[in-house]
């Protein structure tokens, strides 16, 4: 109860504070047009207050309360004066004096703190830089030169000296604080570092002319977008940007994130045969799958050539060619990625297969269901698996694939998994029974004859597309009929023969992908269905009036219209599939050659507590997802 109350109070308090900050920021900038001097004083107060509170909070100040109060007074007064005076030399003087005073105070009252960690080691929290003249001068001059270069690139709009001053001061800050030994310096060095820093920023502030009415109005209006974006940006910074940067830093460090290693973790990712193994590439040329894929692609090319000759060009794509290329491409990719092993290739295989198959099936179902009877019910059933979590889907399919050691004299050899029960049952049916087998053969034969009749009728009526479709569909049916007659399925020597769907590498990966396809087809279908419904009816009507067939309607009218949607679905799916984790975690935990990057990252980082290697894997995944995300965002922006 106490915890609940604190949580509720915390949330309410945080919302309250955020609201006050938000309204306060708006009110402050409302001051700008009419009460410029007070606005300026307030900005001075806030900037100096923030800087010194940060120093204080990090225990970098001696007698922090007095120092912070002094600094805030200096900042406020300086801001107020700068909000009144218009003489440029006076302004410069006040700005420099304020900056030097603040920098000097910070330097003079800085302290090096000694602390003891729980395990007894002494550490120094640094505050006084050990200034090295050479690097310091180098960084400062380098910064100034960079400033000049930026001024050139920015087409010389603002005065040169401001750019040089800003970048020179930043260079000094880097030289003084970032690259030096922060705990080795004396008080004088700390004062010097602070004074020069203050001098630079003070001069920058002082050289700005006193704002005129137009400038004041501009400040008020321009501030709004930052105030409104602020909360969102802060949220993204905390949840996304900071973790990303931290992951990048960790990825070049050792397992506990303590020492710098360089690219060693990345080398490990690409040299470990478990993550990146190309040694089996020669097997590709003996792979039946590969040659099957090549043949199917070539068939597609031949069809395209034939069609091209009909219209007098070299090649013309048509639905049969597209289909052949799609299937052939999938076969070839499966062949290639079953010989190139390792986590990275596995992930690639997932991306290609799941993305293409899910989108194709989703599109096909959306088209077929469109304007059909019971469309809503059919689509609901396909969409239903979307509602199941990946973990749930993984567990469900593990039961589907489950195998049991086959036992004699039990139906289906005692299989409890659906697929193995079917497989063993099929074997039992075709190899050890007579009457049931005869009935099954008859049923399939009737089906085949019916399909053949349908094809004949289609050709007679001139619906070539349907005719060829049925012919293609007839091939597996005939093959199945032949198999039934000669015997197929998991049965040999009077015992069931099981298939180890999850354990037999490398094609167990495909069985795992089926799970994700099962859940994602619904997603693709719903989006495509909406896009198809959004195709203007006038276009369809016009095409029909011109005598277009259903096939032409789809390929020439609907497809071009839904192209942007196809892009969105594919990019969304790619990003989703790249991050696949739960299914593999639940079904194999990366064993049996089914590892994917996300699970590998989790295992390195959290099972082995190797945060360096885990972060490197995360960065690899991030780098792979990034281009797709960029394309996706660009596309969405164009759509808007």
């Amino acid at each position, binding site marked *: 109860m106490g915890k609940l109350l604190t949580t509720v109070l915390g949330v309410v308090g945080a919302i309250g504070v955020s609201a006050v900050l938000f309204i306060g920021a708006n009110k402050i900038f409302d001051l700008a047009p009419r009460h410029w001097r007070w606005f300026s004083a307030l900005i001075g107060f806030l900037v100096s207050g923030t800087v010194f509170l940060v120093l204080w909070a990090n225990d970098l100040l001696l007698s922090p309360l007095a120092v912070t109060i002094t600094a805030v007074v200096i900042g406020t007064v300086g801001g107020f004066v700068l909000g009144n005076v218009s003489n440029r030399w006076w302004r410069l003087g006040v700005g420099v004096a304020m900056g030097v005073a603040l920098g000097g105070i910070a330097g003079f009252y800085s302290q090096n703190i000694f602390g003891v960690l729980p395990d007894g080691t002494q550490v120094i929290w640094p505050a006084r830089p050990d200034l090295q003249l050479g690097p310091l001068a180098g960084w400062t001059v380098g910064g100034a030169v960079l400033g000049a270069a930026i001024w050139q690139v920015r087409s010389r709009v603002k005065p040169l000296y401001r750019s040089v001053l800003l970048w020179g001061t930043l260079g000094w800050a880097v030289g003084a604080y970032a690259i030096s030994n922060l705990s080795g310096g004396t008080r004088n060095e700390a004062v010097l570092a602070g004074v020069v820093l203050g001098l630079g920023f003070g001069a920058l502030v002082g050289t700005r002319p006193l704002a005129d009415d137009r400038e004041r109005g501009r400040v008020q209006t321009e501030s709004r977008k930052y105030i409104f974006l602020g909360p969102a940006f802060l949220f993204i910074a905390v949840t996304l940007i900071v973790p990303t940067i931290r992951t990048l830093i960790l990825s070049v460090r050792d397992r506990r994130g303590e020492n710098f290693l360089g690219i060693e973790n990345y080398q490990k990712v690409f040299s470990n045969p478990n993550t990146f193994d190309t040694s089996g590439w020669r097997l590709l040329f003996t792979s039946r799958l590969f040659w099957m894929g090549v043949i199917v692609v070539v068939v597609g090319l031949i069809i395209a050539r034939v069609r091209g000759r009909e219209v007098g060009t070299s090649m013309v794509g048509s639905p049969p060619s597209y289909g052949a290329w799609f299937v052939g491409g999938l076969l070839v990719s499966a062949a290639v990625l079953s010989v190139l092993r390792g986590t990275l290739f596995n992930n690639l295989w997932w991306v290609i297969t799941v993305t293409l198959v899910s989108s194709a099936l989703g599109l096909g179902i959306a088209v077929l269901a469109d304007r059909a009877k019971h469309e809503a019910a059919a689509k609901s059933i396909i969409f239903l698996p979307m509602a199941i979590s990946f973990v749930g889907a993984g567990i469900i399919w593990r039961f589907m694939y489950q195998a049991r050691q086959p036992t004699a004299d039990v139906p289906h050899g005692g299989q409890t998994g659906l697929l193995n029960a079917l497989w063993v049952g099929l074997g039992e049916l075709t190899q050890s029974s007579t009457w049931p087998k005869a009935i099954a053969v008859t049923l399939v034969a009737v089906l085949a004859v019916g399909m053949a009749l349908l094809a004949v009728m289609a050709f007679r009526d001139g619906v070539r597309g349907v005719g060829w479709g049925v012919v293609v569909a007839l091939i597996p049916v005939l093959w199945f009929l032949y198999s039934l007659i000669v015997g197929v399925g998991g049965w040999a020597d009077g015992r069931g023969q099981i298939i180890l769907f999850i354990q037999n590498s490398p094609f167990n990966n495909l069985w795992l992908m089926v799970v994700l396809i099962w859940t994602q087809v619904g997603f693709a279908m719903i989006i495509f269905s909406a896009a198809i419904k959004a195709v203007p009816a006038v276009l369809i009507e016009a095409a029909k009036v011109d005598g277009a067939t259903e096939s032409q309607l789809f390929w020439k009218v609907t497809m071009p219209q839904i192209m942007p949607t196809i892009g969105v679905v594919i990019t969304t799916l790619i990003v989703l599939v790249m991050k696949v984790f739960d299914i593999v975690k639940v079904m194999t935990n990366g*064993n049996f050659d089914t590892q994917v990057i996300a699970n590998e990252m989790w295992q390195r980082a959290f099972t082995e507590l190797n945060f360096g290697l885990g972060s490197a894997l995360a960065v690899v995944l991030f780098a792979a997802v990034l281009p797709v995300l960029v394309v996706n965002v660009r596309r969405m922006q164009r759509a808007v």
Partner: protein
Amino acid sequence: MTSRAALVVAVALVAAACSSDASTETPETVVVTSIVTETVTETVTETVEVEVPATNPFEGTSVTVFGPESGGAEEQAMIAALDLFAAKSGIDVTYLGARDFSDQINAQAAGGNPPDIAVFPQPGKVADFAREGFILPLPAGTEAVMNDNFSDAWTAFGNVDGVQFAIPTKADLKSLVWYQPARFEAGGYTVPETWGELLTLSDQMIADGNTPWCVGIESGPATGWTFTDWVEDLTLRIEGPEYYDQWVDHSIPFNNPEMAAIWQTVLDLWNTPGAVFASSGSIAATPFGANGQPLVDGKCYMHRQASFYSAFLPEGTPAADGTEGAVDVFYFPSVGEDKPVLGAGTLVSAFRDAPEVWAVMEYFASGEYADARQRFQALGKGSAVTEGVLSGFLSPNLNADLSLYTPLEQSFLDILATADVVRFDGSDLMPSDVGAGTFWTEGTSAVNGEKTVQEALDAIEASWP
């Protein structure tokens, strides 16, 4: 056997209310824990009475314990034993068990949200955590309590670089083969005394149309550990303890030829056609716990697994009492003259420095805990209904009450205490990158045939931190 046992633990919170009354000087006796074993035919209730002190320094404190014992009699007995202490001490002790303990404890410790006490199944993990600064060294008082209860051989597993971080709480004897004497008798088989006899027996069973071995190495995120146990046991037998120690502390590379030969020996035995019954179709797919039923059913004749395996046998299975369905064990035969023994166990370590945490730690170190856990676990396995039921729990505690154990379990303890060569489970001693990482995963790859033995060994060697 159709008896089904359910273990019910009920704690009467009245105990705390009574004891908080400071004016009552006389300690009261209250019933705090009752255990009910239900069977088809009868219900047995066991009640435990404890004295509750009138004043309690730990009133209102709480301690969380996290461990790998999850589900079934093991977890319930752990909870019951802790409840007993909770009622006595007034500390609110909560036990949480998770099958993927080793992953979760990492995330909890690295995330700064650890339990107060964790039950580690691996000394290697204790050493890792001690060096990371996650767990606390034992204070002198607690260490003294521990030293009163355990021999140096056992406390050494919780000692990291000369500092004591953990207390042993459970012992397992791993070099055992489970079998059913009745079936051996029916088949005319005799218990093998040497490695050669074992191989001959295995071949003989295959020739007779029987399946000699039950093997399954699936165990969630820890898949593969059963294979590492076989490798360790054979390493002790074939290469001897000296080689074993060098192998464990990595003073010889993991992928040396001797190790490859040992892996090959295990795989050759398993891959002999007809040698292994794996209920899920393949060794890598079969959960290690799923072999109890087939062993009892006679689908396979031998199962090399640790003493705790009795917790995975069908409930109420009698042990070594001469009845028809009883199971027994024989020593996993040795190659040479000496009879080395592979052991394992769990250790507890603390993450939080507080008097109540150390009080619970001292309870874990006491003979009282060992006895309570044994009693409750045996009840949970149905000992109230069937005589001679194995609990699956063994304690290395010197002050444990041996009369609570069956004669068979007493012999386990005796072997652990007296064997010439005892070695702790090697994968548990190795750094967890290997011992709870690649040794499991690469072993699984080799068993499942994705990798050759040499490829797997090279990968393990490359992963040694």
